[in-house]
C-alpha cells in the first residue's frame, strides 16, 4: 500500500494504491496526515480507484482522515470508489460522514 499525492490549485489528491488492511493502515494514515498538515489544502480527495483490497481498516482510514480534515477546516471527498469497498463504507454509514463523488480527472 502506498499513497501518491498530487496538489492542484488548493486541492490535495491522495491516490491510494494497493491493499488497505490493519497491517498497512497505520503507516498509510501517518503519511496522509503528515502531507495534509504540511500542505493545508482547501479540499482533499481520497481516491480509491487503485485500491486492490480493503477491509474495515479502510473505514478507520476514512473516519480518522475526516476528523483531521474537520479540525483543519478542509473539505474532504471520497472519489472513484466502487464494488465491495464502497459496500463496506456504505454499510458502515461513512457515506453520511463524507460525500462520495465520481471524478474522472485522476491522471
Amino acid at each position, binding site marked *: 500500500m502506498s499513497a501518491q499525492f498530487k496538489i492542484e490549485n488548493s486541492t490535495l489528491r491522495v491516490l491510494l494504491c494497493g*491493499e488497505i*488492511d*490493519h*497491517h498497512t*493502515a*497505520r503507516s498509510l*494514515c501517518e503519511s496522509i496526515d503528515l502531507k495534509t498538515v504540511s500542505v493545508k489544502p482547501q479540499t482533499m480527495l481520497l481516491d480509491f480507484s487503485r485500491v486492490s*483490497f*480493503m*477491509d*474495515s*481498516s479502510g*473505514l*478507520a482510514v476514512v*473516519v*480518522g482522515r475526516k476528523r483531521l480534515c474537520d479540525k483543519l477546516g478542509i473539505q474532504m471527498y471520497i472519489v472513484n470508489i466502487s*464494488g*465491495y469497498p464502497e*459496500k*463496506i463504507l456504505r*454499510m*458502515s454509514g461513512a457515506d453520511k460522514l463524507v460525500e462520495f463523488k465520481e471524478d474522472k480527472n485522476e491522471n
Partner: protein
Amino acid sequence: MKTDNSIKLEFPSKSSNEGFSRVAIAALASQLDPTLEQINEIKTAVSEAVTNAIVHGYKDSIGTIYITAKIRGKKLTVTVRDKGCGIADIEQARQPMFTTGNENERSGMGFTIMESFMDRVRVKSVPGGGTKVTLEKQLDIKQ
C-alpha cells in the same frame, strides 16, 4: 468431479500475515469457481477474523493463529482460532461500531462485515482460553 478439499494453516499473530492468510483461503476457494465478488467477500471476511485474533485475541503479545478451511460440495467453511484472551460478551462484540481497540485504527465493523459477506458466522469464546470464529459460504449461487 469431486472437489472436496481442506487445508490447515498455523502462523504467528503478526500483522504481516493478514495478507498471506486471506490470499491462501481465497486460493482454496477459487477451486469452486467463485465470482470475483465472492472471492473479495471471502478475503475481506477472513481478513476481519484474522485481524481480530491479532488485535484483540493476542493484544500486545504474539501467539499462534490456527486456520482450517474446507470445501465440501460447493460450500466453503473457514475456522480462525486463537488461544488469546477470549471475548467476555460475544453479543456486544458483534454489535456494529463496538470496539475495545484503538478508535483511530479500529472501526468496530469486523463482525458486521463478516456477517454481511458470509452466509453464516459462528463465534465460540472462552475468556482466558481463546476464540474460534467459523465462517460459511455457499458458492454455487452466482451473484
